[in-house]
């Protein structure tokens, strides 16, 4: 295929470089060039959201974006959720409320939820359901995912108060 290109991006706060074909999907760059395999692939049609990452803070399905489109931008993946201060409230919520079974959809789901709570710190159940409707989970029936989001929202509010 055509010549490879260098993509420079800030990934989880660190400057990263990858040499990719222009057609390379962002999810493949993240998984195969950067070896961040927490971001998963679950479909071919942008339906499942297992590959959700944040691009400049907005959730995107990284299977439907070219790696080169991320050049010069900020990417956040599941691997960046935990900080020196500990787990993020979203990670904590998923564990506390049993918001996952097999764990395959979980990273993408948590990235969507992280973005939701940035934008809307106190979402209603309907708002949560709508926000995660682009992330499919086959195991949980979403009940405890919603509780996990509510848990995280509560913790976040507590921390802000």
């Amino acid at each position: 295929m055509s010549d490879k290109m260098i993509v420079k991006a800030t990934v989880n706060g660190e400057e990263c470089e990858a040499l990719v074909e222009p057609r390379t999907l962002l999810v493949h760059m993240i998984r195969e060039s950067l070896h961040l395999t927490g971001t998963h692939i679950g479909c071919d049609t942008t339906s499942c959201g297992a590959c959700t990452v944040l691009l400049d803070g907005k959730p995107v399905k990284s299977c439907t974006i070219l790696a080169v489109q991320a050049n010069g931008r900020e990417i956040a993946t599941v691997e960046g959720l935990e900080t020196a201060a500990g787990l993020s409230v979203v990670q904590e919520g998923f564990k506390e409320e049993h918001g996952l079974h097999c764990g395959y959809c979980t990273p993408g789901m948590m990235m969507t939820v992280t973005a939701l709570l940035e934008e809307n710190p106190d979402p209603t159940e309907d708002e949560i359901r709508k926000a995660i409707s682009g992330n499919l989970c086959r195991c949980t029936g979403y009940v405890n995912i919603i509780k996990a989001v509510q848990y995280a929202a509560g913790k976040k509010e507590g921390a802000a108060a």
Partner: protein
Amino acid sequence: MTAATESTVNGAIGQSPKRVEDDRFIRGMGNYVDDVQLPGMLHMAIYRSPFAHATINSIDTSRALAMPGVVACITGQDLVAHGLAWMPTLAGDTQAVLATDKVRFQGQEVVCVIAKTSYQAEDALEGIDVDYDPLPVIVDPKRALDADAPIIRSDLEGKTDNHIFTWESGDAEATDRVFAEADIVIKLDTLYPRIHPAPMETCGAVADYNKATGKMTIHLTSQAPHAHRTLFAMVAGLPEQKLRIISPDVGGGFGNKVPIYPGYVVATAASLLIGKPVKWVESRTENLMSTGFARDYHMEGELAATKDGKMLGLRANVLADHGAFNAQAQPSKWPAGFFNIATGSYDLQAAHCKVDGVYTNKAPGGIAYRCSFRVTEAAYLIERLVDNLAHETGIDAAELRKQNFIQPEQFPYKSPMGWEYDSGDYEKAMNIALELVGYEELRKEQAEKRAKGEVMGIGFSSFTEIVGAGMSKICDIAGLAMIDSAELRIHPTGKGVLKLGVQSQGQGHETTFAQIVANELGIPYTDIAVEHGDTDHTPYGLGTYASRSTPTGGAATAIVARKLREKARQIAAHLLECAPDDLEFDSGTFTVKGSPEKSKTIQECVFGAYQSDLPDDMEKGFEDVTYYDAPEMTYPFGTYICVVDIDKGTGQVKVRKFVAVDDCGTRINPMIVDGQIHGGLTQGFGTAMMELISFDEDGNCFGGNFMDYLIPTAVESPDWTLGECTTPSPHHPFGAKGVGESPTVGSPQAFVNAVVDALHPYGITNIDMPLSSHKVWKVLRDAGVTDE
């Protein structure tokens, strides 16, 4: 059974500690097959047939071989030389690994391309040229049995039709007699449609052959790694001691990861021949179009009853569509699985069922999607019939069920088709459900709404499951007894490792199995590391499906822990200088009867096992292994009630309330049990309302991606109201029965019964799943009740 005593130990049975495995999943540190990246690893992609039925005249891979990065193209003819062009299925049939003579379903594997990158492998599929002569296609299983139907399995010597098997159970004559005396016979002709488990992680393999050692390591999306190792050894002729299957974290299975697929076989063969690791991970389209589908049962059921609602007998005739190869996954002696559990929760005088399996030009399978071998279809049939009997007789659907339930004092209960149910209290579960849903008020509301022309329905399902296979005298897979195992080793400091033959795909075994040990030995669950999924490091087992992990592997874990508890008792007696029988054990401590100051903890006993002053007749170390062969199946049950409102203008079915009361015996971790039930109910909702794999008359598959094959999102998934009932299994070591599949087995008919209940005033007695708005709207329109 020894009832689970209430232990105060951290994580003992009945407590709900948070899951141990979550610590890696929430950090993105799970390790799934596609995450395996090995030095020099090659990538495989599969060229698949665009036709559902066609003769292959020629295959030309020369253009593909000339494309960048392509290392090899493997055809069926290449595999013939290694005896691998065909493989046996779990059902005793054969399946083409790569097509040689003709293709038999759309999406069938024809050529595998191995290249340096996954993109290059995909690119090269465009360079494969296959010359086909299309043949007539059979999509309808009824048409498959016509005398002039084209023969799909021309590869089978002497095959002159598309019939696979006939299987019967029960007493046909006795059933005929009962039917002859009945006042009422309810008939139902229904299709349980073809659906797909669709776990979020698709199937895949990384085969890694080491030329120097001759060892083949296969990282595999496997629900049954040990059985798969043996099957690879038998089929490919690989020495079993040099085969290692690693099923790492599995992103959901639901039965989809029980069979062995052609992609696994070719990736393994390619690694062996090329000497490098080869990765194959299927796309979602490949997953939905070619790997194990479920159901596709065309069922004719008849229920005989007296006019006052006494149910007398059941008759079922089933046409089972298995696709192009009989690749269903059932125990060997059970071609229609445990479909003969079809008498369900009811005490009938006689029953008979007959199942005919047929070939069609569709993807092969018939796997047990989150169910114990065709229990789902059986439970659907009887529960639909019972609700229709309620409508016919005018007897309330709950009352009718209560009148006909097997009563608690009848257990162990021998069913007319031969099963011996271990335990149950069906009316108790029903009463809890009625209370939770507010049944009397709902029926009043329904009457008021009907008077106003509104459409509301209440549907029941009082299912009985049969799980935990189990029972090697009647259950084997490819000759392998359906046992399972546990190996427990406690290190000198009192912390240890439990190794299992079963394999988690999200069920939480690393937590719940440690809890079993905590309960039996009194060692906190956090001190027990659970290992599974690596055949080099775990004892043999048949794997996780059919809700069998807790009934079999869980039993093995309890028993091995009890063996070690007895060893600890001997050590404690030695240390305390008393007789073993003088010791009492509670929550991890042995105490001399009557002398509470004289005691030893389990940790002190374990340390003693590694010390030099043990008596000479006592073996050092603290470990053991158990292989458990279940004496009986377990029979979880429950009552589900669904309440729906239907929009007459659009046909949209809104699930207003859904109550689920499950009895799965002793619950190890109630939080995880509830999570399993939420998930299974949502899958049942998907089955009832939206999921479908269908075909046009040319065998083109509809439902081959997530745009067409709809699974529930958070928006339409209902909320669930759970209730609990506990009738411990009398034969399981701690009374557990298994729970993973009850909600998928039990729920679809509750949705359908609710919709039929809503519509029966308009003369509707059946609608087949999925109950899409369009389908319901058409039914309403035909009945003249749609809003303008």
